[in-house]
């Protein structure tokens, strides 16, 4: 991973948002998910544009992971419309076109880094020759900057290393849509910056669409667009700039808090007028 690419945004300047080409990567209408007695997502309407990084932000437990699982097609009891890359979410042809990283690294602890990637590559692209598969594995390991400990067992790695193995698996086969659930949790600042540079490079050079969740608001500034979530609803949807100017705040964090206060006040008003 190079530290600065030409496509990397300046640390605090506004991002140049790539033009949206074609239909949205994800389009949701009235998306509702029920888990047990709880309605986790309440009739969401949103789109995720192609070729951009969309940040999904909100406090823990607001439904970010459920939303991502719905898009990937592993969530049960999804109602409403949810279209992913032109197909209904969970369609079999999407399984090769989406890269998905769960919140907890889902890798085999009793396999080495390389064995993990070899196996997932064999599942994803069984038609590749052994040499091609090896090149493919080398490529994604370079992407996540894990080239030195490839023969260590995943179970012996640090938390940050394991989550990078998990991310590398999602990068196999050059997916069009990457759904990354808190990919930078527990990583040091240098690694976090490097990964965000990688995300930008994926969007810029491969035209990949990224949906990245986080509960760290400073990462929001690095996204082209934001979906702010709270308690199963979408609080705001727009570029970081638009959110800041709409709320008259300096940071996305302040904008988010402002919107939360507004929503809470509105809810309270509804309570008292009832």
């Amino acid at each position, binding site marked *: 991973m190079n530290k600065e690419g030409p496509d990397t945004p300046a640390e605090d300047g506004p991002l140049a948002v790539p033009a949206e080409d074609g239909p949205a990567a994800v389009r949701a209408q009235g998306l509702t998910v029920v888990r047990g007695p709880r309605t986790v997502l309440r009739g969401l309407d949103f789109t995720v544009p192609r070729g951009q990084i969309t940040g999904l932000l909100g406090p823990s437990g607001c439904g970010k992971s459920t939303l991502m699982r719905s898009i990937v097609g592993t969530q*049960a009891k999804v109602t409403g419309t949810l279209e992913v890359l032109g197909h209904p979410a969970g369609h079999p042809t999407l399984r090769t076109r989406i890269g998905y990283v*769960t919140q907890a690294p889902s890798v085999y602890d009793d396999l080495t880094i390389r064995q993990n990637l070899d196996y997932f590559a064999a599942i994803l692209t069984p038609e590749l020759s052994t040499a091609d598969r090896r090149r493919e594995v080398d490529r994604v390991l370079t992407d996540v900057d894990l080239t030195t400990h490839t023969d260590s067992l995943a179970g012996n790695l640090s938390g940050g290393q394991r989550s990078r193995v998990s991310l590398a698996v999602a990068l196999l086969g050059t997916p*069009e849509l990457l759904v990354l659930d808190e990919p930078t949790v527990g990583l040091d600042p240098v690694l976090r910056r490097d990964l965000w540079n990688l995300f930008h490079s994926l969007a810029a050079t491969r035209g990949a669409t990224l949906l990245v969740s986080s509960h760290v608001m400073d990462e929001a500034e690095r996204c082209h667009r934001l979906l702010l979530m709270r308690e199963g609803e979408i609080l705001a949807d727009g570029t970081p700039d638009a959110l800041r100017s709409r709320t008259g705040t300096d940071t996305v964090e302040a904008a988010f808090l402002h919107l939360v206060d507004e929503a809470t006040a509105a809810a309270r008003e509804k309570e008292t007028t009832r």
Partner: protein
Amino acid sequence: MSTTTTAPTRSAPTPPRALNASRTTATAARVLRQLRHDPRTIALMLLVPCVMLVLLRYVFDGSPRVFDNIGASLLGIFPLITMFLVTSIATLRERTSGTLERLLAMPLGKGDLIAGYALAFGTIAIIQSCLATGLAVWFLGLDVIGSPWLLLLVALLDALLGTALGLFVSAFAASEFQAVQFMPAVIFPQLLLCGLFTARSNMHPVLEAISDVLPMSYAVDGMNEVLKHTDMTANFVRDVLIVAGCALLVLGLGAATLRRRTA
């Protein structure tokens, strides 16, 4: 950024089929590789049955006929129990570690996963059965009239049945504690009723009827047919078919417990 490499795109996927040979063998190889990093488990799987047979041989030192009967039955029971335990824990881990969710979000067929597990543990079962059968027949004086190859065949089918049962019950276990407790719940009743301790015809009629529908009874019957007859008897063929049928049925049920979408 190293993003300029020409990477194979995901746009031309292998069409999804019930079984994909390379995905199945990749899965089997992966399961075996995981085991290879755990030599203690391999040693326990392979050696414990042998040690038990030696133990049994000298427990019945004065009555070799009893050793013949129980020894042959145990050659069928060991692979079933071992594979049941290993598979139930392995697939439970797969469910709880998130790797199953990841695999099912990829173009892996449920059949590929199950066949991969069956292939991997079937291989271990063959090695285990070769060791145990060889030890029993050549070193411990187990008196088998039929072919030892038939003993091996039954043992392999028993291992498959154990794999199938383990896979199936892992869906109902939320933790490894629960998975281990399924062993006394699922295996012990069959062990008591399979004819190991007393002939099934001597049991209370109700128990005999129950033992008639439990697959382990036929595993043990099959072993005893080989023990007592030079040729493949009609009963042996029936026993083998029943055990194989049960294994396939339970594997199918196991496949049904793998859901791409979970709550």
